[in-house]
């Protein structure tokens, strides 16, 4: 049995998930918030064990047969866990119809994050497929969790149908891959010469791409995003918009740049077209939204588009860009959603709820403005450093067209981000009471704000972390 010590964090999480589901039966509904606190504890513990892995790499990094624990996977595991912790903090304060099934709610979140951590370190297509399925199924349920409202079940169903459909495509792709290579392992570098022309291999990679594209909401497969995001309870929307996207991208980085390098298959043009399409579609459709959750949904599609730039350049510099942008994206998106929850709790998620926020509570308005500006890529905030790195990668490896489209997209994105500040700063307030927030929400918000400003102003420590964790074992 390979050394399971490598997978201790996943084991801790899944064990706690099962425990929570069980505990739900015994703890009365009034105290069910404890379960969320327990979940928080578990993910903190998992993060702790990751610390161990980082402290002495010899012991805790290595390759199993189907998975590998290397600096990149550790980096993304930290991001996934950070996202989980932030989401659980938001969940504690987010208002819900009833506190039923909180145990399974928290359990499913932990299961999903365990799935993501597996996905990040998977090098075998079967492993990839199973972890994707684990994430998908738990998130189908989480999206439909708020059963009181009809729309949530509908959103969940849409998300499920497209999810199932895409995984069917992916499975077919995997079967073709198995046909072409005889194995689902990706460790052995696939001989490039023969496959560039074989239809079997190409069709398999493209079919698999459908499954992966669905998970990171790439352009042709992104249509489920707005409905699912709007239907899901906001903490889950935050979770969906960050963690699976980051994990999916990590897996695509590993699969399509290292193991089946897409330049060898002359598919770079296709991928850069998909990146451009994702950005443009995300930004353009976001212009017309006036529901904050849908706006942030489309914005997260656009952000995925930007991250794909690092994936298109397929070199170490591009990879570091994706890592850095994922980190910055985690904090700015979580922050934006935290504010959305703080406002959403009272006045709902339409943009009109933000009218005159600057006069009601200036601090919250300025923080939200910082998050939006960072998402738009305005210095001196984290978003700018991330975009700077990615555009640099594009310019360095000669993708000038892609860089120009990306740059124009970020100008367009400013338009709809500024529509929110327009509501907050320029319009008179409707309600006069300042927005109040729970303790967890407040601390989550503060953490995100500090991180965004810190990465923006002094990005050096983050850059060195990103540089060191960009190399992969195989």
């Amino acid at each position: 049995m390979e050394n399971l010590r490598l997978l201790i964090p996943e084991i801790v999480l899944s064990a706690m998930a099962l425990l929570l589901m069980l505990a739900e039966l015994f703890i009365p509904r009034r105290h069910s918030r404890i379960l969320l606190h327990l979940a928080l504890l578990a993910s903190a513990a998992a993060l702790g064990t990751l610390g161990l892995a980082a402290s002495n790499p010899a012991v805790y990094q290595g390759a199993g047969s189907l998975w590998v624990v290397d600096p990149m996977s550790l980096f993304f595991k930290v991001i996934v866990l950070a996202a989980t912790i932030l989401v659980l903090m938001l969940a504690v304060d987010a208002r819900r119809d009833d506190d039923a099934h909180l145990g399974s709610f928290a359990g499913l979140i932990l299961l999903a994050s365990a799935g993501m951590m597996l996905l990040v370190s998977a090098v075998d297509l079967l492993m990839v497929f199973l972890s994707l399925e684990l994430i998908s199924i738990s998130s189908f349920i989480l999206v439909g969790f708020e059963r009181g409202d009809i729309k949530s079940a509908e959103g969940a169903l849409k998300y499920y149908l497209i999810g199932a459909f895409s995984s069917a495509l992916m499975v077919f792709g995997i079967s073709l891959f198995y046909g072409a290579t005889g194995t689902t392992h990706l460790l052995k570098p696939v001989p490039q010469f023969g496959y560039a022309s074989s239809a079997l291999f190409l069709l398999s990679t493209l079919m698999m791409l459908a499954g992966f594209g669905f998970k990171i909401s790439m352009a042709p497969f992104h249509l489920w995003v707005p409905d699912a995001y709007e239907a899901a309870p906001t903490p889950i929307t935050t979770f969906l918009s960050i963690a699976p996207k980051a994990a999916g991208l990590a897996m695509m980085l590993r699969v399509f740049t290292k193991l089946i390098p897409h330049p060898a298959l002359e598919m770079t043009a296709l991928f850069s077209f998909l990146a451009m399409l994702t950005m443009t579609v995300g930004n353009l459709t976001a212009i017309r939204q006036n529901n904050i959750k849908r706006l942030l949904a489309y914005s997260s599609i656009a952000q995925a588009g930007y991250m794909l730039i690092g994936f298109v350049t397929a070199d170490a510099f591009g990879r570091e860009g994706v890592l850095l942008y994922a980190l910055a994206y985690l904090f700015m998106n979580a922050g934006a959603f935290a504010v959305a929850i703080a406002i959403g709790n009272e006045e709902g998620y339409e943009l009109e709820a933000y009218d005159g926020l600057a006069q009601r509570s200036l601090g919250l308005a300025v923080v939200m403005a910082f998050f939006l500006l960072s998402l738009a890529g305005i210095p001196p905030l984290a978003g700018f450093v991330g975009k700077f790195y990615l555009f640099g990668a594009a310019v360095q490896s000669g993708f000038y067209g892609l860089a120009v489209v990306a740059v124009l997209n970020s100008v367009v994105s400013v338009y709809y981000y500024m529509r929110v500040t327009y509501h907050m700063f320029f319009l008179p307030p409707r309600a006069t009471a300042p927005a109040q927030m729970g303790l967890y929400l407040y601390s989550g918000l503060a953490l995100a704000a500090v991180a965004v400003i810190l990465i923006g102003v002094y990005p050096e420590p983050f850059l060195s972390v990103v540089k060191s964790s960009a190399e992969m074992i195989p």
Partner: protein
Amino acid sequence: MPILSLTTFLPLLGGILILFIPKERKDAIRWVGVGSTVAAFLASVYALTLFDPGLASPAPLTLQMVEKLSWIPSFGIHYFMGVDGLSLPIVLLTTLLSMAAAIYSMNIEERVKEYYFWFLLLEVGMTGVFCALDMFLFYVFWEITLVPMYFLIGIWGGPKKEYAAIKFFLFTLFGSVFMLLGMLALYFASNPHTFDMVELARSHAVFGREFQIIVFLAFYLGFAVKVPAFPFHTWLPLAHVEAPTGVSVLLAGVLLKMGVYGLLRVCYVILPAGFEWFLPFLVIIAFINIVYGALCAMAQTDMKKMVAYSSINHMGYALLGMAAISPTGFNGAAMQMITHGLITGALFILVGVIYDRAHTRDISAFGGLGAKVPVYAGIMSLTCFASLGLPGLAGFVSEFLCFLGAFPAWKLYTALSVSGILITAAFFLRMLQKVFMGPLNEKWAGLGDMNARELVSVLPLTVLTIFLGLWPRLILDIMNPTLTAMTKLFPSLFQSVR
């Protein structure tokens, strides 16, 4: 003692201090706001005393009061601040105009706390742009000026303020993102990769001609939006008309200079081949700016829009002076930045004075105010004459130097651009005649003359305008050595203009 960082970040200190003052205590906020602008101005004056003009040497950039500490080592980015003959006067101009605008803005009543917070943040960005010598730092300060200006125009502006604010933001951002791409291209083309302007300036021979042209165009797009050069100027009149008085003083007085400064500091020094290729187009754009701007100003009825279009005209002179790559031309362009800042800053304050009283800027709505408000009429006429280039006032000297420098190289265009002076004289005099002369329009019988606050904010600018007109040695001695050295940087290039 890091004097430049002090000048740049003192307002930030003031801004943070303001955040802690409760919203209701407006006076305390106002005094802290004005106090920090005054402190920044004193710091910049102290920097002036430290500055030794004679130090310019033929090396690409000889800097003084340099502060250099590594900021992002993995990219080789430094917090690199320094000043030379070209940038010190503009820093002084920035702090002076910010002080004048802050004093004038003490009449803002609603949301004073936010106003001064964004105002001071804007000043940090502006001063930083002129001191920064690392491309990354330059770009960060450049973008820092965008957000406060967006809020300042959008919250305290005129009727169409939201549209003006977002138009300003998107337009400038559109230009600056191309600048970002140009900067990245420079970074990856230089070996070892660096953002440091001094290294880039030294290694300009490394870049091929086509590369320099493309990167120049990227930078030019960013700077042309700010100058504003002909096709990219449509945001200026709207932003000026809608911005509150104090903000439009800074917008005209300082933000326009970032474009011209950028062209001189970045495009000329680092991308000479690109600059040389673009020269004939630059002259044509300068000519269009001058004549087109002046003619559009003539067609205006709104006083503020007229002054805005006249800024396009004046910036055309600076571009013309620059297009000749002669020491006289560069001196003219650099001095035009300072004098235009002083004069147009004063003009906007004066337009604000009458707007606060009459709540209209329509020229034809006034008449015969000369007798009613003599002090205001006197200062306004003096500033208008300075703006149309009356000798003995600052405007003339810089205009004259621009034309003097540009004439030997571009005889036809300079001769044609001289007509701009006449058109400028025409619309300013028409405005003076319609507002101050003729029978008194009884609607304004109750109009009061300028009060102490307005006088304190405009007088330093007027006195400086007169003083620089009579004794231009004050700035020219600082600028001349640096700019003469700059023109000698590329003996092989610019043959067409020698």
